[in-house]
Every structure is written in C-alpha cells, then in structure tokens.
C-alpha cells in the first residue's frame, strides 16, 4: 500500500487497489494455492486493478504504474524485504507531515499504518465515527492537494520531519496511557499500537537514537500498566506500586534500548526521558542524583515549565522538600492552571507538615483535574490531609 500511495499520491486510491487485489486473492488462492511471494503478488495485482479502474473512468494511467505492470517477472522474484522498508518509512513520514494538524497526523497514522478501521480510531478518540471520517477525509485531501510527497524527506528536512513522526507516535501512546476523558486510566490497544509502530520505526532507522529512545520510553511506561491502577480502578503512585506486577521483559527491553541509544551518542529529549524512566524501574528505586542530572540536560535540550516541574520534584528528593518547593513556586505563573503543579506542591507541603496549605493545594488540583481516576486519587489525598489537621 505504501508503494501505491507513492504512485498515486493518494491514500484512498491506494487502499481501493489493495482491497481489489485481496478480493481476487480470496477467489484465486484457495483454488490455485498461495503464491511463493504473496506480498509481491498482491502488489502486482493491486497495480493491475488500479489500472483497470483508471481505464474504466477514462483517466490517464501514470507512466510508472504502466511500467511496473509491464515487467511482472522481476516483481515476483524480488526479495520481499528489499524496497518495502523505504516505502513504509515514506508513508509514515507523509502521514506525520508537520503541515497536517496534530490530530490529523495521529488519525492518519492509525488508519494507514496501524490498520485500524475508521470506527476503531473514532472510538479511541471518543468522537463519532462520522466526525473521524471527516477528519480523515480532510487530512487525505490535504495530503493529495498540498504537495506532500510520499518520499523520504531530504537531509536538511529530516530532523524536523523525524521529530514530527516521533511526536505523533508519542501522542498515540499518550492517548492510550492516560485517557483525558473516560473512566479507564490505561487504554491498552492504543499503547500496544504505538509500541508496534515504534518498533517498525526502529527497524527502519536502527541507528537513530531518538527513535530508540521513544520506543524505550513507551516500553518503560507501559511496563507499569498492571500496577498503575489497583483492583478498585484507583490510581497507585509510582512509589506505592506493587513491583511484582511490573512487566520485567518490557523493562529489560526498554533499558537495553536506552543503553544502545546512549552508546550511539543519543542526547535528545526521548533518550533522556527514557533514561529517567529506566531509573525509576530499578529494583532498588532510582538514583535521584542521576535523575536530576538527566533533568538538567533535558531542561537545556527541550525545556519547558513541565520539565522544570518534574526536575523540581526530583530535587526535592536530593535536596529536601524546601528546595523543591522553592523551585516549584517559581513556576506558579506558568503552571497555575495545571493540576499536577498543584498536586506536586501539595505533596511537598504535606511532607513539610504545612497541612493547611497542602489541603488548599490539593483542593486546587482537584478543581483542575479532568480524569476521574486522578480526581478520585486527589480527593482521597485531600480528605486524608484535612483529617490530619489538629482540631
């Protein structure tokens, strides 16, 4: 499908052609047997079907398409692993082009690469199937009309384009990890899909540290999926999680990827975040000094108030809650509407025994939190904090 998308510059036509080919396969293969190279057979048949459709509609057949059908023998004997990786990578890059709106990139990636149906993508984002169909149509029209090629980006464009691909995959993962609306804190299918696509990306660019870093980060987050929420569906903090429920295989893979990325000279935001996540996955708990060091670097490389907030929380562990609180208070201007800012503040105030202020901060956090599982957690903290107030 990636190869056809490149020929047509049109995902809809490519999809139609592949579907036509599958219909023929379903008729022929039970009768004639499965061909030696099924993928190449589908590719060739899809091209033939595409030409048929074009001729019936009395439209021009692109020269490369006609040529590809003239020389079928070569196709069928081709090494199935050869040109396909480049084309899939080009498809990923096209779907994640920065000129497309972020939601459009996510929807297209899930649809074209994840193989999810429109209904499944709609369900993942809690919109109606019709709304998602419209979003996809608009995105495909933009792809077609705006001159976005199904080609690998040129060297100078690579960093920005790659950043967009990584960000899109991480958005997909994030949507599954902590649904912003809805009752479940973790939606496994989206996380699994993001990880699968992350693996594809790593196999297509094995020496790109940030791609390895992203996959590591997702694996490490995902390793805690069975421990994040307890039997009652309530949020469990990292420090309180039942570590026997952590996925050790995922942790091992994630940590290994971090090491490889670092060995390749990786110093970017995904590698650094993955490094921090790997620290948290250590059996004895994180080496907080190393975590602070990573946050220092992250702040320099891809800083922002949220990174500064997380760094402040880490500094509270190495230098005590007072030091952390001072840093957090500096961020009040930027993060005043962020529920995690207030909950981090509340936690440090609680540790310092400033109970009234802690209660006020939990209260503020609760008023800003949207996710029901997080709300339940904050409400619990609030009531236990106020319960401790001296009468």
């Amino acid at each position: 499908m990636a190869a056809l998308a490149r020929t047509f510059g049109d995902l809809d036509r490519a999809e139609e052609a592949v579907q036509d080919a599958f219909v023929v396969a379903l008729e022929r293969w039970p009768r004639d047997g499965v061909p030696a190279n099924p993928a190449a057979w589908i590719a060739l048949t899809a091209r033939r079907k595409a030409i048929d459709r074009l001729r019936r509609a009395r439209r021009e057949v692109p020269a490369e398409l006609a040529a590809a059908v003239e020389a079928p023998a070569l196709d069928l004997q081709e090494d199935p692993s050869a040109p396909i990786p480049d084309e899939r990578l080009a498809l990923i890059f096209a779907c994640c082009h920065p000129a497309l709106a972020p939601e459009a990139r996510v929807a297209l990636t899930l649809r074209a690469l994840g193989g999810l149906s429109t209904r499944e993508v709609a369900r993942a984002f809690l919109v109606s199937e019709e709304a998602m169909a419209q979003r996809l149509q608009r995105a495909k029209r933009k792809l077609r009309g705006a001159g976005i090629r199904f080609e690998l980006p040129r060297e100078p464009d690579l960093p920005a384009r790659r950043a967009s691909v990584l960000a899109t995959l991480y958005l997909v993962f994030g949507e599954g990890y902590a649904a912003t609306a809805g009752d479940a804190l973790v939606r496994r299918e989206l996380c699994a899909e993001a990880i699968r696509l992350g693996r594809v990306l790593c196999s297509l660019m094995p020496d790109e540290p940030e791609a390895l870093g992203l996959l590591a980060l997702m694996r490490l987050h995902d390793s805690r999926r069975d421990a994040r929420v307890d039997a009652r569906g309530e949020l469990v903090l990292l420090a309180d999680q039942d570590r026997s429920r952590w996925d050790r295989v995922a942790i091992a893979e994630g940590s290994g990827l971090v090491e490889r990325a670092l060995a390749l000279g990786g110093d970017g935001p995904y590698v650094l975040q993955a490094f921090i996540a790997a620290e948290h996955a250590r059996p004895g708990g994180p080496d907080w000094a190393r975590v602070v060091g990573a946050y220092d670097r992250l702040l320099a490389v891809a800083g922002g108030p949220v990174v500064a907030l997380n760094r402040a929380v880490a500094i509270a562990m190495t230098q005590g809650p007072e030091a952390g609180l001072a840093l957090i208070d500096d961020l009040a201007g930027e993060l005043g509407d962020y529920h995690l800012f207030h909950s981090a503040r509340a936690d440090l105030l609680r540790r310092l025994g400033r109970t009234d202020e802690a209660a006020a901060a939990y209260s503020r956090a609760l008023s800003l939190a949207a996710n029901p599982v997080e709300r339940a957690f904050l409400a619990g903290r609030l009531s236990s904090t106020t319960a401790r107030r001296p009468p």
Partner: protein
Amino acid sequence: MKFLLTIYGEESGWGDASPEEIGQVMAAYEAFGRAAAEAGVLVGGEGLQPTSTATTVRVRDNETLTTDGPFAETREQLGGYYLLDCSDLDDAIGWAARVPGAQNASVEVRPVMNYEGAEHVDEARERAQR
C-alpha cells in the same frame, strides 16, 4: 508544482520604521528574489502598497459596487506575494521560511489549483458539452 506565498503582517509596524530599517528589509527581499530566481523557482512576486490604497470591487445584480479599503479589516494585512514553482510542499516551506517577512509576520503557503486531471472539472466539462 506551483505555490502562492502570501505575506501577512501588521502594516502599522512600518510607520515606526526608520529609513535605515526599511532599506535593510528591501535589501533582504531583493536577496530573496535573486536566490529564488537563481534556483529556478521564482515565477513572480511583488510587494503591495498598504491596504489604505486598496479598493474592493463587487458586482451584485449587475451593479458594480466599489468600497474604499481591503475586502475585510484584519489584524494582519496582505503585504506581498511570491509565486514559486517548487518540487513539493517541503521545498515550498523551505523557501517560505527564507522570506524576510517570515521573521516577524506570517507567510501562507497554498498550492495553486491544478485543473489537469481533476475529476470534478472533467465532469463539468463533459456536462457542458452535452
């Protein structure tokens, strides 16, 4: 593939500019035009006089109505354009980023309509011929 680059910025900014600053901007645009021409992508481009010189024309019920000013009052105004022939959107974006106006204003990049092989156009033609 042809793209129209339209440059939108706050006109009022020019009022405060010194002759020196204006000279620098002009030189930057000249350099851009030269570079685009040398690269073989420049099809056309002009700076526009301010919206205070604009006239908007509408024909309704066979009556030609002219109003003083741009088609709508906007926070940022169209100040100029370039018509470029680029290989793809990434190429056009690369050039748009080099437009001096991109530094403090906005450059919109839009592909020019391609009527060749557009299905709805062919259908309309066929219908008209019947």
